[in-house]
């Protein structure tokens, strides 16, 4: 992991950003389709989220009367933190640009920065709904963030580094780790975190517009037009990033570990396959479960946190 910039690192980084930016809305579309089919409906085409984004880009920009500059900056910050996290994370290749900085803490806090920006944007117009959404989103974030961090730390014990590419490379070298007890516990914790952070059922219902139950939709209620498109794209890319990380941290096979065109292609194809599989799984969870009451959520998230701590303890005991 030297500082020299290779052409493959640049290509891998660009591939990752483009793939997540275009692929994540498709993942959301696939999940919506699966849910619709399971409920006996035909459902919208899977590229509907992309069409929605294109439509929003042509709409007029509207700002709430009491909103400040924060309302304008927040979408940019959400996009920036997510895109940088996507660019430096090992998704297609283990050597993207700045892969040496792709530390657990960097990714977790970049995502937290995006959440904080969204929450501030919710408070900015000075409405009841915005505050409600921000408060709930930050509460869930505050409970999910420790589980996320500790679960990935559990993975870092065996590889001896908190650098995500190093974790993946060492997992590739030691396939027997994948089924270790520590990994499985961490997998459970990360699954809960991913569902919470991406706002899926049973934590939040992405398709609800019923004011008192919504979390994320309430927070971004005042956004319209291109800025809504940015916020939505940022959130969707975050979902793409979390699904990809979940896939690559536990089953890194297929990711490009050396600089050749063929391995990059393999990286792209395997990432697409793995994330679609995860999307199918999450969609099935969504079909099978009801949304939890807000004040039952802490129990679920605390469960995730306990799983992640157990994963670290098991990792330390069995190393």
């Amino acid at each position, binding site marked *: *992991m030297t500082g020299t910039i290779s052409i493959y690192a640049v290509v891998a980084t660009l591939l990752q950003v483009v793939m997540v930016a275009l692929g994540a809305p498709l993942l959301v579309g696939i999940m919506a389709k699966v849910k619709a089919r399971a409920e006996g409906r035909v459902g919208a085409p899977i590229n509907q989220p992309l069409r929605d984004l294109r439509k929003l880009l042509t709409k*007029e*920009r*509207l700002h*709430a*009367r*009491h*909103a400040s*500059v924060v309302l304008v900056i927040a979408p*940019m910050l959400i*996009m*920036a933190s997510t895109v*940088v996290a996507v*660019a*430096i994370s090992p998704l297609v290749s283990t050597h993207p640009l*700045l892969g*040496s*900085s792709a*530390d*657990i*803490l*960097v990714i977790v*806090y970049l995502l*937290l*920065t995006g959440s*904080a920006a969204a*929450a*501030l944007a919710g*408070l*900015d117009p*000075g*409405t*009841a709904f*915005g*505050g409600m959404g*921000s*408060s709930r989103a*930050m*509460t869930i*974030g*505050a409970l999910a*963030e*420790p589980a996320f*961090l*500790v679960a990935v*730390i559990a993975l*870092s014990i065996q590889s*001896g*580094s*908190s*650098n995500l590419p190093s974790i993946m490379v060492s997992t590739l070298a030691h396939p027997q780790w994948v089924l270790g007890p520590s990994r499985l516990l961490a997998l459970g914790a990360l699954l809960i975190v991913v569902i919470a952070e991406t706002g899926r059922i049973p934590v939040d219902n992405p398709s609800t517009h019923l004011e008192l139950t919504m979390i994320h939709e309430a927070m971004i209620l*005042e956004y319209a037009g*291109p800025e809504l498109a*940015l916020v939505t794209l940022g959130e969707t890319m975050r979902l793409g990033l979390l699904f990809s990380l979940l896939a690559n941290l536990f089953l890194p096979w297929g990711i490009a570990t050396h600089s050749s065109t063929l391995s990059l292609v393999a990286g792209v194809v395997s990432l697409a396959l793995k994330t679609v599989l995860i999307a199918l799984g999450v969609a099935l969870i969504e079909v099978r479960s009801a949304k939890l009451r*807000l*004040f039952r959520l802490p129990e679920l998230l605390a469960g995730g946190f306990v799983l992640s*701590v157990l994963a*670290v*303890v098991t990792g*330390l005991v069995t190393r």
Partner: protein
Amino acid sequence: MTLFLVALGLCAAAAVAGATFPRGSRVVVSSVLGSLGCLIAFSVALRILLTGDTVTFHTAQVLPMTGVSLTLDPLGAWFVLASSFVGVATCLYNVGYARGAMASRSALSLFMVFVLSLLVVPSASSIMTLMFAWELMALSSLLLILTDQARHPDARSAALWYGVMTQLGAASILLGLLVMTSNGSGQNFADLSAHSSTLSPVTRSFAFVLVLLGFASKAGAVPLHVWLPKAHPEAPSPVSALMSSSMVAMGIYGIIRVGEGLLHGGTVWWWIAVALLGVVSAFYGALHATTSTDLKRLLAYSTIDIIGLVLIGVGAAGALADSGQPVISRLAMSAALLLVVAHAAFKGALFLAAGAVERATATRNLDLLGGLIHTMPVTALVVALSAGAIMAVPTLSGFSSEWLLLQGLLHGFSVVSTPTVIVMLLGVIALALTGGLTAVAFVKAFGIGFLGQSRSSGAAQAHEVSKFMTLAMGWLVIPSVVIGVMPGLFVPLLDRAASSALGTSTVSPFTRGAGLEVAQLSGAIQPAAILIGLVAVMVIVWALNQALAQRRARRVDAWGCGRDWQTPRMQYTATSFAEPLQRVFADVLRPQSDVEVTHVAESRYYEQSLVYENRVADILEARGYRPIIAVALRVGQFARRLQNGSIHRYLAFGFVALLVILVVVG
């Protein structure tokens, strides 16, 4: 050293000027002298950290019998660096801030004495000098809390709590240091350090525990923290800023100096105890910060949180050093020290900003604020950046230090001994838990205080504070950005301070560069590159947004569920924002809520008024301290019976006491 003495002299002159100059000029003169003194002290500390030299000074002229001994080594210089940097800002701030009680002769001169003492404590090198400076620091800050007691009646009780805690702490420190001299080593730190190995292990541990109690209470470690969330908010803002950024750091300094410097590390359990104090403090502080509605109280609790993280770093460093891991130990110590300096800057800035808000709106209750970003844009920017630093937003200073701390803890897992590994694990968990809670606390502080619509007439009529105050706040934002973006610049200084703290000369854990890179341990971050990435994406997004927009954004009413009548009272407040978390952690916080409904006389179905009250008391104060105070009061009441004012009885007491002494001695 001469230059450092000049700096101290300037601060002393500032104190004299504050006490003697006429009303019109004394604020300006004393502030200019004080900030000049702090700037010189800063440059001296910087030079010592750059060269690694140690300078000493001794005079028998100042303090009777023992004289004054000063030594500045890289460890002391690191803390002088933090105090003097904040000192410059607070002196500057005072020019715009001081009026009324704060501009009085006594307050100005005490303020400068406080600044002076914060420079002397880390450079003191004998027990007498240290304790003298320590008491100067405690007493001057105690009196400063009382400055504006006419307008802040709570200040009296806060000062009482602070006074009792700090004096008990000082007694404990003094006793501990005296125990260390029981082998006849004298009172100079050099002699103490050279002879401390002749003390028996039990004596050393006893001395360390005593000293730890005193310093930990000054640092605000839970459960010795009760005075801190009372005293820090009640003090005038420049004093709060110094207390919360520099004075708590002196507690950390004391633990490192005595534990590592004078007692050479001792045994593992000392440091496990320190780290456990840190774990409890970090969690407790972060949790209370999320539920506080008083802006300065929120900041005070967040100080307890960050000090907890620092103690985790110090404890991990000590435990690792005793477990034969000198390199990782030095890494953990570096993390703790970097966090001390980063915290001094961002917490100083936040307290000064809180003072600006209080000055502009006459309140610091977040439930009454809102919309200040429109009227106080500079203060809002300062709070946003400093809150970002404390929330550990990547490319700001809190992130660099927390990343180092995590690296230290993760690599500490390689130690064999189980208790140490458990402490490392608890440290990681505390770091993870506080990360999310701190984000809630500061999103709340900024989002409720500065965004939305104003919730009171005071907040609606706010206007930006004077140039001096904004300049001082801006000065304190510099380190948050520079340490965050270019942490590599500080690595040589940090490394020198950490190695001086641990008294070892192992290989450095760092690789030199613009970012932070830990040698041998395969860990690196390049914040500058991340910042370039963030800025590039933001510029692209902004440009696209501009290109797509046909015309300027139209201002419309916020969506109000179909009715176009929304008042500021419908917004979420700080209390309601934190309510879900308060409910989640109800077992720890024990909140008390009262709803009082008054019905109209005619019908029970209609309410006339509704009062909702929500209080989160400090559970440790209510359950731990109040019973002790009750017992102490009862003992006091009993002892009072002995004193009935009769001279005959007192003479009888004296006679009996004399007899007892004669019997015992004879």
